[in-house]
C-alpha cells in the first residue's frame, strides 16, 4: 500500500489529512478525539493575545446551504477566534503534543498588527512544543472589523510585514493562511514568500450571506433579528479553492512555495485533487463538522487505494501532477474538435439534454419520435452542457473527431496540429508562426 506519511515544511504527519483551524480544534478534548480517529495533524483554533478573551455571540453561529435530503453543501460561520483564555489553550496544546508526538500540531495565531503583539505570543507558542504556526490572515468576519484576519490578508504589504516579524522572532515554520476575498490570490502568496513564509495555506472562508429568513427579513444566521456576513466553507467552495491553489502553484514568482490546500475537502477524491494541483497536504473542517472525525478513515483508504492503482508510492509523487496541465485559455488547442454522442441504450428519455440545448444553447439535439434524442452535428459546438444536465452517467460522451474528419458545423477538416488563440487569424494581436 502507498505510503501516506508526509512532511510539510519539515513537519511530519502520518497522513496528509489535517484538521483546519476551526471549531473542531478549539479544545484538547476535540483534538484528542481527532487523533484517536486517525487525523494526521491539526491546526489549533486561532489564539489571540493574552488578556480577556474575545466573546462570541450567544445566538446561532452558522448558516447553511443544503442540497437534496438536507445534504450540507455549504456552511457559513460568524464564530470568532478562540474565546478561551490563552493560558488554557497553551497548556492543552502542550499536553496534546506531548501525548501525540507523531502528529502535526500547528497553532493558528491572530494578534493586532503591531510587532510587539507578535513578539509577545510567539515564545509562548514555541514553549508548547508545537510544530509550527499558521498566521490567520483569512477570517472575513468579526475580527476583520478590528483590523485583523482578512483585513491583513487583503493587503499584501501587511502580509509581508507580519510574516517577516514572525520569521524573525521564532524558529517555528510559518504558514500564512490566505483569504479568498481578494481579486488575485497570487499577490498575497507572493507577499508571503517575500516575507519569508515557509508555506501558504488556502483558502480561508468566503464572505457570504447564506440565506434570508423570508418571514423576519433577517439574514441568516439571525441574531435577534439581525445578521452579518460570515465565512462560507464546505463542498460549495471547493472549485474556488482549487483554482486559487492552482494559480499559486503555477505562478513562477512563488515557485516552490509549499501549499496546504483547504476548501471543501469532503472525500479522498477532493483531497487527491488538491494534491495534484500542488497542495502538499490538505486541511479539513466542514466535512468533519458534518459527519464527525471518522471520515478520515475513508480518506485514508480512498487515497491509498487510488495511489496504489496509479502506481504512486508516496504523497510527494501525487503533489503537483496536474499543475503542468493547468494553463491559460489562450493556450488551449483550438484544433481539438469533439461532438456529443448519446448512447441510446443508456438513455432513459428524460429530455433534459434537449431542453438545455434547445432553450439555452445551440439547438443541437433533435427530439425524434419515441423520445429518441440525437445530436445534430451541424449545430453541436461541443459545449457539453448536455452531459452536465444528463442524470445518467456516461450516457452522453464527447467524441473526439480524428484528423481528416469533417466538422459538420464548420465544414472544415480537422487538423492534427495544435493551434491556439495566440496565432488564430481572428486574434488582432496574433503573432504569425515563425
Amino acid at each position: 500500500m502507498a505510503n501516506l506519511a508526509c512532511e510539510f515544511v519539515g513537519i511530519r504527519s502520518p497522513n496528509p489529512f489535517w484538521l483546519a483551524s476551526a471549531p473542531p480544534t478549539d479544545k484538547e478534548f476535540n483534538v484528542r478525539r481527532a487523533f484517536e480517529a486517525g487525523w494526521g495533524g491539526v491546526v489549533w483554533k486561532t489564539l489571540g493575545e493574552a488578556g480577556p478573551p474575545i466573546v462570541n455571540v450567544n445566538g446561532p453561529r452558522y448558516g447553511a446551504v443544503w442540497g437534496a435530503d438536507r445534504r450540507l453543501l455549504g456552511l457559513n460561520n460568524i464564530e470568532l477566534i478562540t474565546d478561551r483564555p490563552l493560558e488554557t489553550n497553551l497548556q492543552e496544546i502542550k499536553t496534546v503534543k506531548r501525548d501525540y508526538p507523531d502528529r502535526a500540531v500547528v497553532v493558528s495565531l491572530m494578534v493586532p498588527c503591531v510587532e510587539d503583539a507578535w513578539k509577545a505570543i510567539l515564545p509562548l507558542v514555541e514553549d508548547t512544543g508545537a510544530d509550527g504556526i499558521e498566521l490567520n490572515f483569512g477570517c472575513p468576519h468579526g475580527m476583520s472589523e478590528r483590523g485583523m484576519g482578512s483585513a491583513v490578508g487583503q493587503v499584501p504589504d501587511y502580509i509581508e510585514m507580519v510574516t517577516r516579524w514572525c520569521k524573525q522572532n521564532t524558529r517555528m515554520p510559518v504558514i500564512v493562511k490566505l483569504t479568498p476575498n481578494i481579486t488575485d490570490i497570487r499577490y498575497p502568496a507572493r507577499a508571503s514568500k517575500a516575507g519569508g513564509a515557509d508555506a501558504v495555506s488556502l483558502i480561508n472562508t468566503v464572505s457570504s450571506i447564506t440565506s434570508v429568513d423570508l418571514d423576519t427579513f433577517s439574514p441568516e444566521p439571525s441574531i435577534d433579528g439581525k445578521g452579518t456576513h460570515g465565512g462560507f466553507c464546505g463542498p460549495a467552495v471547493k472549485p474556488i479553492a482549487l483554482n486559487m491553489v492552482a494559480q499559486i502553484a503555477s505562478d513562477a514568482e512563488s515557485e516552490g512555495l509549499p501549499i496546504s490546500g483547504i476548501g471543501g475537502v469532503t472525500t479522498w477524491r477532493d483531497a487527491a485533487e488538491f494534491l495534484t494541483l500542488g497542495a502538499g497536504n490538505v486541511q479539513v473542517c466542514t466535512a468533519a463538522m458534518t459527519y464527525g472525525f471518522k471520515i478520515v478513515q475513508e480518506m485514508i483508504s480512498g487515497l491509498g487505494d487510488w495511489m496504489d492503482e496509479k502506481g504512486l508510492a508516496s504523497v510527494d509523487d501525487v503533489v503537483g501532477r496536474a499543475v503542468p496541465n493547468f494553463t491559460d485559455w489562450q493556450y488551449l488547442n483550438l484544433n481539438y474538435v469533439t461532438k456529443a454522442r448519446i448512447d441510446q441504450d443508456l438513455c432513459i428519455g428524460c429530455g433534459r439534454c434537449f431542453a438545455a440545448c434547445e432553450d439555452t444553447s445551440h439547438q443541437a439535439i433533435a427530439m425524434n419520435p419515441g423520445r429518441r434524442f440525437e445530436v445534430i452535428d451541424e449545430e453541436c459546438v461541443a459545449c457539453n452542457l448536455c452531459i452536465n444536465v444528463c442524470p445518467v452517467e456516461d450516457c452522453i460522451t464527447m467524441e473526439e473527431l480524428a484528423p481528416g474528419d469533417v466538422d459538420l458545423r464548420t465544414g472544415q477538416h480537422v487538423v492534427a496540429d495544435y493551434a491556439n488563440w495566440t496565432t488564430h487569424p481572428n486574434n488582432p494581436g496574433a503573432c504569425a508562426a515563425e
Partner: protein
Amino acid sequence: MANNPFTPGIAAGRHSSEVLDRNFADLHPPLDRHEALVAADRCYFCHDAPCVTACPTTIDIPLFIRQIATGTPEAAARTIFDQNILGGMCARACPTESLCEEACVREVAEGRPVEIGRLQRFATDTMMAREGHPYGRAEKTGKRVAVVGAGPAGLACAHRLAMHGHEVIVFDARQRPGGLNEYGIASYKTVDGFAQAEVEWLLGIGGIKVEQGKRHLDGPDLDALIKDHDAVFLGIGLAGVNALQIEGVDLQGVDDAVDFIADLRQAEDLSNLAIGRNVVVVGGGMTAIDAAVQSRLLGAETVTIVYRRGRDRMSASRFEQDLATSKGVRIVTNARPVRAVGDGAVQEVEFQYTRDVANGLVGTGETFRLAADQVFMAIGQTLEGASHTLEIEGGKIKVDGSGRTSVPGVWAGGDCASGGDDLTVTAVAEGRDAAEDIHKTILAGREMVNETPRPGNEPG
C-alpha cells in the same frame, strides 16, 4: 373473541378490532414533509414529460413536484387541482403503476419511479387541510345545469361548471355522494372518511346543490331535465352487474362483489361484517382484487380469485395482483365456473379449465372444485336504465370527444360513457372536459365566454 379465521360458514369478527384496524390502515401512508422533499428531489423535471402524457387528466407533474421540492406544496396542489379537482382521491386510488409512474423515466432507469401518487397526496392533503376552498366562481351566468350522478365524473363536471358561474344541481341515487369513490374503492386506499371529506371540500366552491336519493334515468325523466335546465350531464356509472349463467347462482352466499365492497365501505364497525371462511372471487379486474384482498383482511381463511383467461389478460394491474398475493390471496387462472354446489347455502364451486383459442375461450373438460362459503362475482358492471332516447355503443352511452351524446343538450362522461378506461381519473377528465364544452355551448354568442377566467386565476 368468539370467531376466528377457522370458524365455519360465514361469520363476523374473525379478527379482533386491533387486527382489523391494522389490516385496513392506509395502504400507502402519507409522506411527511421531509420524505416528500426527498421523494420530490428524485424527479428529473423531464422535458415534455412522459408522466404527464400518461395522466388522463394531464396534470403537470414535473411542475407540481418542483413546487413541492421548493417548499410550496399549496402551489403544487393548485397545479394538480387545476386539472383534476379530485386529485386527492386520484392520488390514493389511481393505478399509478400503470399510468404516470409506469411512464416515469426513473422506472425505465432503475425500476423505481418517482412516487408521483404519494407526492400528489402530500400536496393535495396540505391544501385540503387549509381552511376554505381554493377556487372562486366567475360572475353568475344565470344558466342552470343538471348533473346526474355524484360520482367522480359528475362532481368534476359540477365543479368546473360552478367555477364558470353556472348554477348546478346534482341528482344522486345513493345515500351519500361520491359514487364509486364512496362505494367502490377499497377501504385501505381511502381511509378516515376521505371520500366524504373530499366531496364536502369540493362543494365549498358554492353554486352546487346536491340531492341524494334521486334517480333520473328513464326517458321521461331525461326529457324533464332537458326542459328544466340549460344542459344535462350524465355521470350515472354502471349500476348493473353482469350475472353469471350457471347452476347454483341462487344459492345463499353467492353475492356481487360490488355490493360486498360497498357494504364494507359503509360499515360502521368492521368486526360486525360477516365474511366466509373460504371465499372464492370470480373475475380478473380491480373489483375482484378489492373483494378478495378485503375478504382476507376481514379474516377469511382462504381466498381464491379465479379468472377465466391468463394472468396477462387480467385487467387488474400487476401491482394489484401482487398486492393480492402478498395478502395471501391465491390467483387461479384459465378456469371458469361451471356450477355452484350446496344445500341452500353454497359449499363448493366447480370450475373447468379453459384454453384461449382464436375464436374464443374453450373448456378443456378438466374440472376442479374449491370449497366456498361465500362466492363473489366480479365479472363486470353494466349500464342500467339509461334513457332509450340515448344512442348506445358497446353497452355504453355513445359520446363524442367533448362528451356530447346523441341527444342535443345532453352530455355524458365516466364509466357510463363510451371511450376511456373505467378509472376515477378518466371519469374526472371526462366530466371536466364535458363541463368546458357545456360552458361554451350554453354561452355561445355571449362575449363573456372568452373572458371567463381559467382555473387557477380566480382569487383564492
